[in-house]
């Protein structure tokens, strides 16, 4: 569904992504873990073609949509207009509006259809952003830090929501610094550190994945290399 091959990305001569390769099966959820500055956002932006890799290729089957960390809802439009604007350009009937209201209802924010973004809480904005992405029927959904700024209960809601999105057949790549969240939701976790994929695990088949992944966060680079060598034996 997604095939990333040998992607290298530099910002001002600094390597942010270094020979990154992986592929994603349909309807899978891939978690991108790793310390801040590891290149998670950059990788997602390259997949969405918001940034262009310096070398390497990225192939996606079907329509890709990106959910921004800060949502980027359109502030001059109501929630409903945010949802319907893009699909209504292609479908001039009342269908997009009907669909949007249904979706808001399902997400438990049906009453917010006519609100503006500044009248929404963080969790509600998150839902609106998700609904707006789903309105264009993506095959692949990329989420950048979908739980940042959300409380524990709302994070649990996001897990449930994204799982139901997966059950609709949508393939997802989710970048997050929240390991517990990623482990709950991901079929596979890639840990990006200094622009490289340092770990590629299936959290369900790994003993104590949090502890395992945490090791890659705090260690200084030298020790980190040693650990890598040991873990490959």
């Amino acid at each position, binding site marked *: 569904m997604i095939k990333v091959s040998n992607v290298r990305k530099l910002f001002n001569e600094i390597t942010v992504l270094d020979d990154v390769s992986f592929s994603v099966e349909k309807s899978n959820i891939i978690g991108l873990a790793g310390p801040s500055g590891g290149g998670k956002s950059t990788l997602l932006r390259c997949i969405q073609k918001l940034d262009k890799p310096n070398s390497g290729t990225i192939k996606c089957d079907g329509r890709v*949509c*990106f959910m921004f960390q800060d949502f*980027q809802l*359109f502030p*001059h439009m109501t929630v409903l207009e945010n949802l319907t*604007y893009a699909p209504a350009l292609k479908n001039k009937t009342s269908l997009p509006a009907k669909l949007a209201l249904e979706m808001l209802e399902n997400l438990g924010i049906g009453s917010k259809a006519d609100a*503006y*973004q500044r009248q929404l809480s963080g969790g509600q904005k998150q839902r609106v952003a998700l609904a707006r992405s789903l309105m*264009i029927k993506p095959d692949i959904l990329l989420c950048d830090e979908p739980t940042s700024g959300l409380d524990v209960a709302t994070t649990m809601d996001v897990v449930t929501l994204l799982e139901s999105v997966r059950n609709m057949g949508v393939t997802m790549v989710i970048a997050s610094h929240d390991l517990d969240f990623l482990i709950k939701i991901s079929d596979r976790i890639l840990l990006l550190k200094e622009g490289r994929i340092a770990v590629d695990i299936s959290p369900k088949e790994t003993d104590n994945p949090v502890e395992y992944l945490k090791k890659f966060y705090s260690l200084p680079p030298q020790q980190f290399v040693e650990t890598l060598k040991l873990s490959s034996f």
Partner: protein
Amino acid sequence: MERIVSDIVYVGTGVLVTLQLLVGAICIGIVGGLLMSILRYRGTCRSLINGMVSIIRGTPLILQLGLIYFAVPGIFGIKLTAIAAGIISFGLNSSAYVAEILRAGIESIPKGQFEAAQTLGIPTSHMWKDIILPQVVRNVLPAMVGEIIALLKETAIISMIGCQDIMRKSQLLAAEQFVYFTPLCIAGVYYYLLVLFIEFIGRKIERSEKYDKSI
């Protein structure tokens, strides 16, 4: 007393000419400024536009008016009426200022708004029309009202080439009566009333912006 009334009426016949100049120049200024700022943001002809804006803002308006009215016909063989020359030069001049105002307005929109439109598959023309510009307009409305007021006052230099606007009418009156005070005061009151009117319209638009409620 009777004379004052007839003086007011006489200078008032220039209001229509001043408004013609103003409205014509605003149209050219907004269309030109919009085009320049969007092209420039996208990187098309950036240095050409920067150069134009810089020259227009860096030379006196009265010189630009003179060029277009006196010099251009000599070079291209087109005879422009005074009012046409006024509308063109004030419009071009204003477009440079509008381009700068809009540049600041466009740059104040987060890059993520452009990217969000892109990820949703919104075509570029729709993105500008429905996503970016409505937000820009709200940000730049006060500056635009200021530009229109400045433009109104600058139209007074059209009197140099003999167009019978408010200013010219008051000068004619003064020359005829050998008194300057009353004719100039009358012209001043007309200009000031027009400025108040423009400010009033600006405030009305600002309040009617539905976006206002959302911020």
